[in-house]
């Protein structure tokens, strides 16, 4: 079981990810914007953070920059779960410090396994 924070401004997509992670036994918490997300990561004890990228206010790029510049949070695996799936998006996202990338629509049967793989890779 891992403690996972999920940040997405779309309530339905947030619900979906939380539901899947919890169904597979993880302790998942949700936030619906970048500001609240940042605050939660800084104040909580999360093993991994999943975040949408295009959000009003602090978006995923900014979130990644701030977390990776913060030594208390830099080591927490940060995964983009995003509908930005045009050529070049994955590279742009990796470029700001994300540790992983999952394109929307997610594949529900393998989503949790994908997240866990990133969790274990980072945990080595």
């Amino acid at each position, binding site marked *: 079981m891992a403690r996972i924070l999920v940040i997405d401004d779309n309530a339905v*997509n947030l619900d*979906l990810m939380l*539901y899947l992670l919890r169904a597979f036994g993880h302790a998942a918490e949700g936030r619906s914007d970048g500001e609240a997300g940042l605050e939660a990561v800084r104040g909580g004890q999360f093993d991994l953070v999943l975040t949408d990228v295009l959000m009003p206010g602090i978006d995923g790029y900014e979130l990644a920059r701030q977390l990776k510049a913060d030594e208390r949070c830099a080591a927490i695996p940060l995964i983009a779960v995003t509908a930005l*799936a*045009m050529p070049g998006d994955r590279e742009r996202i990796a470029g700001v410090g994300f540790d992983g990338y999952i394109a929307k629509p997610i594949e529900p049967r393998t989503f949790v396994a994908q997240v866990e793989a990133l969790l274990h890779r980072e945990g080595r």
Partner: protein
Amino acid sequence: MSDTPAFSLEDLAGSRFPLLEYAPDATLIVDADGRIRLLNAQAERLFGYYREELIGQPIEMLIPARYRTRHVGERKGYYHDPHVRPMGVGLELNGLRKNGSEFPVEISLSPVNTSDGTFVSASIRDSSERKAFERRLQELNTELETAGRAKDQFLASMSHELRTPLNAIIGFTGTLLMQLPGPLNPEQERQLEIVQSSAQHLLSLINDILDLARIESGKIELHFEPIVVREVVDDVASTLAALALEKELEFTTQIADAGEPIVTDRRALRQILLNLANNALKYTEAGGVRIDVWSSNANGRSAIAFSVSDTGIGIKPEDRERLFQAFKQLDPSNTRRHQGTGLGLYLCRNLSSMLGGELTVTSEYGKGSTFTFTLPR
């Protein structure tokens, strides 16, 4: 060449040299002191003077006051080193008409040796039209760039906006089918599978349409680099292995030429092979699909050939050309049965020609088809 030219300045003005008088460019002959000695009809028209008003006057009379001092210096320099200076080369200059109006000019200069000494011939062209045309061209280019950016932005937004609700549809259909909230009865399961495959189909359509839009706007960025063919073929084979297994089809690859790497775009090559092999598996109910790679020759040049063969339904000869058109599935009832978007082969053919290759098909109706893709080395 003789040191004494065969004609005088007078000759230039007369009927021996009608070219000068009727030249389409304004032409002025100027002496060492910068005084106008001869001019043609077009020069009168261009500057709005009668000939008599200009003869004997300094050439600077035809130049706006702010350029005059500099021009005297340049003129003297040119006399010390006379050479042919073509039209449009050198400084931007304006002409000054009798009525005081200015206009942009292009000037070409050349020395003229006569029995009366050396003169300079200046041909002058009003470049306002060309300048206006250049400006308009620049404006149009800017407009095109803006439109291109708007289109890219539109495609990117469309992709993002369509994927977001699709994520919820595919996601929650998946959780239900995984029976995470609770068991399903067989009819519920059947209906949810229809939702799921329709959503997947919609996603394929979105992906194909975006690819197509990028190809047609020249937005596909190709990165030509050395590629190990076997890696790409193995990747395609492993991606489709599950589909082959599910349909109980034999799926094999045979690389007769595992020689040196070829230089091409990995993503495009992968997409072509993936589309062809995916089609082959889709349209085959019994038997198998194989991918072959071998060394070949295309128009006498060394090439590498890829083929994807199946033992599927085959294609009637009269249908072969329609096959590569967008949104043309041969049998409309196939759309439901095979979940194709009707864009796959159209994309493949576009991509293969972008790689400099050629995509062809041979088929025996009822027995199977072979799609062959030849790429120059």
